[in-house]
């Protein structure tokens, strides 16, 4: 079982590489386009559906600074696929190089337990949890901006900040009443 190792390759000069993992492959594209707009840093975006990643790309793949799991709350498969992909990552990634992004959180067809489950997962791994709105271009730009902040820290562009330090500030925490029934 080949895991993705954060320190297996040398980092690129003035580049940051991010891997977007989404089982539906909806949001990836527009988010990738928005991310590439960044001018001060060369952003390398790679897209994947799920882990394990194909071996034939291992050579050409640069060192991945940040792995983003995009979970669509309206489908259970999305969440399960993300969960299953986690074991293909080296533990070194979970010190601030993994991020969860959730879409469609406002949709009414979403059961409350799924969001709770995602929250629990993110909190147990000490990773940040971002909420994104994929339908409007403004939403995509906003999501890309926030992702870029985390990406810059993960790639070492922020002085005196390591991704571990940033993850301590941005990590997902569980609200104390998560086990109690919600409004509806």
């Amino acid at each position: 079982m080949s895991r993705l190792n954060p320190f297996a390759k040398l980092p690129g000069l003035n580049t940051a590489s991010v891997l977007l993992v989404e089982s539906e492959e909806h949001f990836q594209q527009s988010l990738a386009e928005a991310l590439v707009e960044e001018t001060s840093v060369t952003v390398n975006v790679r897209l994947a559906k799920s882990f394990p990643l194909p071996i034939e790309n291992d050579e050409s793949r640069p060192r991945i600074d940040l792995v983003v799991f995009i979970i669509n709350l309206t489908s259970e498969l999305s969440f399960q696929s993300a969960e299953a992909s986690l074991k293909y990552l080296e533990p070194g990634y979970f010190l601030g190089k993994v991020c969860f992004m959730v879409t469609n959180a406002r949709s009414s067809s979403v059961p409350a337990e799924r969001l709770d489950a995602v929250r629990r997962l993110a909190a147990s791994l000490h990773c940040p949890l971002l909420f994104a709105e994929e339908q409007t271009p403004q939403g995509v730009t906003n999501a890309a901006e926030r992702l870029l902040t985390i990406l810059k820290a993960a790639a070492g562009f922020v002085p005196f900040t390591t991704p571990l330090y940033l993850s301590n500030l941005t990590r997902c925490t569980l609200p104390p009443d998560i086990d109690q029934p919600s409004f509806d």
Partner: protein
Amino acid sequence: MDSSGEDINDMVKKDDAPKGPSGQKETSTADMLRIKQQMSNQCFEMEVHLNAVSVAGKNRRSCSTSEAERDYSDHISELERVKTLRFNQTLALHRMQMWHAMEEKIKTNDPEADALRAVNQRCMALCCRIKQIQQETRLLQDEITELQKKRLEMKRLTHEKMKEMEDLMSRKEHPDTEKYKAALEKGQTNLEKYKKMSIMAQNVLRGLLLACKINWLDDPKLRHVAMTLEEFPITD
């Protein structure tokens, strides 16, 4: 199509850095510094990782997550403390460096140094003036406090005096009038008694004079007595 396929999507479409005449990307000094910073950050991370791995290899003790969490937050607060300390020290260092640079500049005889010196003089003059004014304010403030204290003292005294006066006034009537009243009543009863006696005596004398038909006009002593009889009314 592989179900877990990965797109090789090198979507670096934008050409951000300005190109020189040779077509190479020009990296300015700031960019170089930034790249250097990035590399040092990455190296630091890798170093930490190596250390962690080697340490874990040496002592494989199983630590619980709660213990790790506690250590973690302790480390974070220690980190914050050290960061603030370093920041303050850097500030102090910059201050010293700046002053040193200014000193060096003033020692030379440039027109800039002259301007700097003039500004310096002005600053000193202003500082002296500020000190003076501060002293004066302090004196005035002391005077004001003194006056306020005196006024408060006066107020207190007047208050006390008023209270005393009120006290006395309410107190005085009572004991004096008590004794006074008793004596007054006694005196009055005595007076009534003697008045009645004198009226009776006068009535008797008047009766005597009338009954015995005594000629009191001629005798001056008798006339004097008879005149005084009219002073008291004839009461029944």
